[in-house]
């Protein structure tokens, strides 16, 4: 799109004007009609932006958009909440409304009541409209509900929000292919309706709605006739607006059939190609005259780019005589598709056009007079018809219905059940005796066929949570026997000839033979199957050899066989059920049945089973194709919930989530007890992040069918995610009972138990996942679980197993390193780093922490090497955080050659425009380190006085100690070191990430410089001279696992830990003391002192338990805090002895610990339950 800049600005202004003034694009573009299309497109984008904003940044109240409707009062309709006016049309007013039960938005159309004078008329309208509501086609706006409110009929329908076709066309010719494609789609929809006996009669671009994705949908099907009472002409077009799309016979007031719709489709195609309808004049009457009297101008004269074939197709639709147009919308669609495929079309550009044209030119006066007379006669006829309508109706009813009932039987005989049902539903109650009798018979037979079909459908459904083909067949076998017996056809003990004779006599013979064929499949290969084959053969009007051939195991589906089969199918020499059933058997024998089913579908494109079965074999591998067949199946049987479900599955597979959602919703709407469809809806809702709704749908699925293992798993997972692990547990357990060998099921249960803190139980589930599917992720999960349980060796083994399968499994690498470093195995951790960085050398994440760990482990040679590589590889990266991290990592050595490049990286991070301000202090701290290394001590100290001094404590304090020392401020340096020493848990256990490693490295450096006497003190030689030295000594003791010494020093320095006000410090002291109390570390104390340490720890725990109780008393708000208080006690390795009440302790202490631990557990449970 290359719109000039000035236009772009103007378009924006106009769009804004439309938004602010709530005027239509047409209105604001009155002075700039050339920009209308652009303004509309821009407004559409604004709507998309709004939707995206709503999703990302949801508003807080209902006032999301500006358009506060100026419409005064909206009508009140029970069950709906009307939300605003969508538009007004000739037929009524359309509102946006919310269906309160289903919680979905619909369009609600309130009709003008004018022409539906009395209650009887209204009733008839409703009856007819409900038949239309049964129309279900992807290109027809779905009508949901038809009803009346205070004598005014209304109906609700699918909300289609992409505008109308007339808005889209807006006078611009479309590319030939897209116009042809569009009209082919519309013709499909029209054909579908025609086959059910519904003619639209008012097709025009304004009646074609577009979805936001551009899918056209025909609206107002069949309503035009009723609402306007067949009086289109009498009011000179004011009701219907423009007659531009109206067929001549419609204007004349003659009988109107499907040909009128074909004409209208042609007119729409004409407008698509040329930008204007075939006839348009200043007044409706003048237009009508043109329609009657003139030939349309050839499209190619208006738009030279219109291909000749397409022009021929278009003009063929616009013939004045219906008989000369396409015989059906299907033929039109087929020709359009031939055009699109660049195949020869069937319509011929005949010479009549020129001849008529020449004739009219020779004798213009006569031609006009004849046509005018025709128009006037049409007018008169319509008036008389209206006056006599009621009387004539009564008289003509029998005459009218008799042929329609003939049609009904024809449809029954042809096996077209949907059409038969539709006709049957339209038959009025009052009929003469003979007709009544025929209708009753039709009704009976149709009901039987529908029942048989239901048995067939049930056969492919999931029952009691699983799909068991042979069990389903067994049930179907019984059901068929019962249905045939009940309908008076006899039972399996009767002679096959007698039963066959009864079947032959039925109008629905063909359908019955189909059912017999399916029954035979269910009956297997025994005597019963032989009997059924006999019956079917006897009942079949033309017994097909295929009945035997398809059962022959030696059958080869080569091309010749398929071609022969196709011919016989087309000639209706066998039933679709026979072949589809055979395909089912072949598929079980691993034969590729796609070619076979494709043949069936091609031969019977309008057959439900042909489409359904083909869609069913295609959905997994070629969902896009499966969608077409599933759509066809849905169109043929809008009331088949299975077909909707199959469509949904194919759509979902193809990634069309919203459409899939719609399809599943339809399935549920058609059959509210359809458990599986509820389950799928839950899945889609979950994926859309609508968890509460997903839980509700999942619950419904499980309620309807407790045996749906996957639905229970999904429900459990969703509940866990929502923090409702206790409820989730039940679902996961049930799911596993149903399907004990499911990997996901076991994993779900394990995770759920983990959520509840029940790691011991979770272990079995994680172990099972590994047995079932030894994938790295499962080993990792098992390892994580073991680690939680304190079984570190086992955990390590699992991580290693994960890594054996995938050497760069990042989460396992990380977890393993975290296990190795605290236990002093830095070398192994470094080896892992080495392997990871070699495997993905260009990913900064693979290097993250490598250099820091080298420094922590004192491996300075490797450190040098890593730093060189880091700067080489990432010295020019732009991402601020990476810059800072690498710069910092390369400054851990007091002197280094890389000082300048590292500093440059940190400066780059600080200068980067996209860096987040809240990260600035971190970057500044890194810069302080750089200044320290560069000898700019004052500058470093100045930086640390700012925000940089408050991050990653106590690192800034350590840098400060170093800088102060270098400036000669020894006393201050000592104080800083002491503060830092108290501000962190220096035990190897806590050295779990690169930040901690940096702290240790800097602490060691500071200790060496500031307190050179520390090693002597640590070795037990001499006494610390003051508190500052004591504090520093604590850090050294902790880092070398001298917990007893550390605990003693803590006590001297700080007194009883339970008296400390700072919770973090208190916990740090408790941790060291707990380790000393357990006799861990290099300097275990005597028993009595250990007991003293343990008592101190218990005092701290009691303090936290009390605080926890207080928080909980504050209600929900306090709960999170309460959990946080308990967390370290439940998880920290230092407190293991407290939790496990080890047998080594004296009995009195053991009881004390048990009592305390029970309290912890009880509180934790309460927290979990309330959460």
């Amino acid at each position, binding site marked *: 799109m290359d719109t000039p800049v000035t236009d*772009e600005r103007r378009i*924006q202004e106009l*769009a*804004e004007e439309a*938004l*602010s003034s709530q005027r239509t694009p047409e209105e604001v573009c009155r002075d700039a009609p050339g920009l209308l299309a652009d303004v509309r497109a*821009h407004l559409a*984008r*604004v709507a*998309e*932006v709004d939707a*995206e*904003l709503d999703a*990302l*940044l*949801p*508003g*807080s*109240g209902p006032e999301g958009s*500006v358009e506060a409707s100026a419409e005064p009062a909206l009508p009140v309709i029970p069950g709906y909440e009307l939300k605003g006016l969508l538009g007004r049309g000739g037929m009524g007013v359309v509102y946006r409304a919310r269906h309160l039960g289903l919680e979905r938005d619909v369009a609600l159309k309130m009709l003008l009541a004018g022409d539906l004078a009395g209650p009887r008329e209204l009733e008839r309208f409703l009856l007819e409209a409900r038949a239309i509501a049964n129309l279900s086609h992807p290109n027809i706006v779905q009508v949901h509900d038809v009803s009346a409110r205070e004598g005014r009929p209304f109906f609700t329908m699918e909300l289609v929000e992409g505008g109308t076709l007339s808005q889209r066309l807006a006078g611009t010719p479309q590319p030939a292919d897209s116009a042809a494609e569009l009209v082919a789609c519309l013709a499909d929809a029209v054909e579908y309706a025609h086959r059910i006996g519904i003619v639209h009669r008012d097709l025009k671009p304004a009646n074609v709605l577009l979805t936001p994705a*551009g899918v056209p949908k025909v609206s107002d099907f069949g309503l035009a006739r009723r609402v306007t009472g067949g009086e289109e002409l009498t009011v000179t077009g004011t009701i219907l607006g423009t007659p531009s799309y109206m067929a001549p016979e419609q204007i004349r007031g003659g009988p109107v059939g499907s040909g009128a719709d074909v004409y209208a489709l042609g007119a729409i195609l004409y407008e698509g190609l040329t930008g204007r309808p075939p006839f348009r004049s200043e007044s409706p009457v003048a237009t009508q005259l043109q329609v009657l009297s003139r030939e349309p101008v050839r499209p190619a004269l208006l738009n030279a780019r219109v291909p000749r074939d397409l022009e021929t197709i278009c003009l063929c639709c616009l013939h004045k005589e219906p008989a000369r147009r396409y015989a059906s919308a299907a033929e039109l669609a087929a020709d359009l598709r031939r055009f699109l495929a660049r195949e020869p079309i069937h319509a011929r550009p005949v010479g009549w056009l020129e001849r008529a044209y020449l004739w009219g030119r020779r004798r213009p006066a006569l031609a006009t007079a004849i046509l005018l007379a025709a128009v006037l006669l049409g007018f008169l006829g319509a008036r008389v018809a209206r006056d006599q309508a009621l009387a004539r109706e009564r008289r003509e009813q029998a005459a009218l219905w008799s042929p329609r009932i003939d049609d009904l039987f024809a449809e029954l005989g042809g096996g077209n059940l949907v059409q038969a049902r539709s006709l049957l539903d339209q038959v009025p109650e009052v009929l003469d005796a003979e007709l009544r009798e025929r209708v009753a018979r039709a009704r009976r037979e149709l009901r039987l066929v529908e029942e048989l079909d239901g048995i067939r459908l049930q056969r492919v459904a999931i029952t009691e949570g699983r799909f068991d083909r042979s069990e389903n067949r067994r049930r179907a076998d019984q059901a068929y026997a019962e249905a045939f017996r009940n309908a008076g056809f006899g039972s399996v003990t009767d002679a096959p000839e007698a039963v066959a004779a009864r079947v032959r006599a039925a109008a629905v013979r063909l359908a019955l033979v189909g059912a017999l064929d399916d029954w035979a499949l269910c009956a297997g290969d025994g005597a019963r199957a032989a009997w059924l084959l006999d019956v079917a053969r006897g009942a079949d009007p033309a017994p097909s050899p295929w009945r035997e051939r398809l059962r022959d195991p030696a059958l080869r589906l080569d091309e010749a066989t398929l071609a022969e089969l196709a011919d016989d199918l087309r000639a209706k020499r066998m039933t679709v059920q026979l072949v589809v059933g055979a395909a089912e058997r072949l598929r079980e024998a691993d034969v590729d049945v796609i070619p076979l089913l494709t043949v069936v579908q091609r031969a019977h494109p309008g057959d439900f089973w042909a489409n359904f079965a083909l869609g069913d074999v295609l959905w997994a591998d070629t*969902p*896009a194709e499966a969608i077409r067949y599933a759509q066809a199946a849905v169109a043929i049987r809008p009331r088949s919930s299975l077909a909707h479900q199959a469509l949904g599955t194919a759509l979902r*597979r*193809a*990634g*069309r*989530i919203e*459409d899939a959602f719609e399809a599943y919703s339809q399935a549920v709407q058609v059959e509210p007890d359809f458990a599986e469809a509820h389950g799928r809806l839950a899945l889609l809702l*979950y*994926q859309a*992040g609508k*968890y509460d709704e997903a839980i509700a749908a999942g619950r419904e699925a499980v309620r309807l069918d407790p045996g749906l293992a*996957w639905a229970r*798993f*999904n429900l459990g*997972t*969703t509940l*866990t*995610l929502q923090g409702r692990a206790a409820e989730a547990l039940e679902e996961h357990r049930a*799911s596993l009972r149903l399907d004990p060998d*499911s*990997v*996901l*099921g076991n994993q779900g249960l394990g*995770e759920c138990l983990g*959520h509840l803190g029940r790691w011991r139980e979770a272990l079995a589930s994680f172990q099972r996942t590994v047995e079932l*599917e030894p994938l790295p992720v499962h080993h990792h*999960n098992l390892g*994580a*679980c073991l680690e*939680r349980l304190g079984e570190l060796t086992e955990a390590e083994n699992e991580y290693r197993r994960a890594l054996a399968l995938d050497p760069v499994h990042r989460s396992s690498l990380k977890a393993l390193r975290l296990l190795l470093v605290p236990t002093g195995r830095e070398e192994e951790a470094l080896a892992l780093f080495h392997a990871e960085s070699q495997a993905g050398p260009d990913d900064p994440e693979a290097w993250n922490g490598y250099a820091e760990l080298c420094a922590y482990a004192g491996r300075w040679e490797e450190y040098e090497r890593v730093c060189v590589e880091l700067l080489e590889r990432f010295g020019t990266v732009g991402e601020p955080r990476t810059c800072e991290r690498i710069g910092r990592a390369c400054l851990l050595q007091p002197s280094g050659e890389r000082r300048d490049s590292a500093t440059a990286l940190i400066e780059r991070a600080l200068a980067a425009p996209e860096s*987040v*301000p*809240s990260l600035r202090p971190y970057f500044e701290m890194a810069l302080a380190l750089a200044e320290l290394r560069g000898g700019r001590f004052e500058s470093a100290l100045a930086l640390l006085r700012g*925000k940089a001094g408050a991050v990653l404590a106590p690192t800034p304090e350590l840098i400060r100690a170093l800088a102060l020392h270098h400036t000669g401020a020894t006393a201050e340096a000592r104080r800083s070191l002491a503060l830092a020493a108290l501000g962190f848990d220096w035990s190897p256990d806590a050295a779990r990430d690169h930040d901690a490693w940096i702290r240790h490295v800097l602490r060691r450096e500071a200790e060496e410089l500031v307190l050179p006497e520390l090693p002597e003190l640590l070795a037990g030689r001499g006494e610390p001279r003051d508190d500052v030295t004591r504090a520093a000594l604590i850090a050294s003791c902790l880092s070398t696992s001298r917990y007893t010494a550390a605990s003693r020093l803590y006590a001297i320095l700080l007194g009883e830990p339970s008296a400390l006000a700072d919770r973090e410090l208190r916990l740090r002291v408790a941790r060291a003391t707990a380790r000393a109390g357990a006799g861990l570390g290099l300097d275990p104390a005597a028993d009595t002192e250990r007991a003293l340490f343990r008592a101190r720890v218990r005092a701290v725990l009691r303090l936290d338990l009390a605080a926890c109780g207080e928080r909980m008393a504050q209600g929900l*708000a306090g709960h*999170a*805090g309460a959990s*946080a208080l308990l967390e370290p006690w439940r998880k920290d390795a230092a407190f293991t002895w407290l939790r496990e009440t080890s047998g080594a302790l004296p009995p009195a202490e053991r009881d004390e610990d048990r009592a305390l631990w029970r309290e912890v557990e009880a509180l934790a449970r309460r927290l979990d339950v309330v959460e």
Partner: protein
Amino acid sequence: MGEMRTTAAVQLYLDELRARPEAAGDPQVIRALLGRAAARLELLCSVMLRRSYPRLARPPLNLKADEMLGAIVERLIKALREARPASVREFFGLANQHMRWELNDLARRLDEHTPALELAEHLEGVRTPGEPGLGAKTRRMLAALEHLGEEEREVLGLVRLQGMTHDEAAEILGVSTKTVQRRLNRGRVQLATLLKDLLPDEAAGGDSVGS
């Protein structure tokens, strides 16, 4: 968890204000504002977290959402505290800016995570990814917000980031509600222009075959 931290941080802020009352306006007002901005940011972040990778928060996988949110909110509050805005309007200007940055940062981090496994359709183990590219989408939108005109950005920030009504926004800016709506509309139109090339075309949903 996030809530505790938030409350604690607000308290800290108030303490500081009490110690130096000249630093900002009426503490009561600031308390309300701060709490509101923090709650709002937390909501927006959790919407994003939940939408993008529903399973991130599940054990024993990856990410602790609560902790992450806590840290984000803490940073916001800290930033606001340190900036000591002179007026409510300035306060929200800063809050808007920080929230955009934080959301952007969060979105970026989300994109770095591989989506965890998802719900099942059959228990045989079908895996489907979470909503793809959400992080990128968010960042795009935030970048577009950044490029709006001054007035439009301010209004959209108040309404969309802070979740205010038009009347509230009008009061803070000292203009009429109509003006707010006009700026909002202009902002929407500008956004549509900025995002024009970024919004997906109406191509069919894509027939990608899952694994």
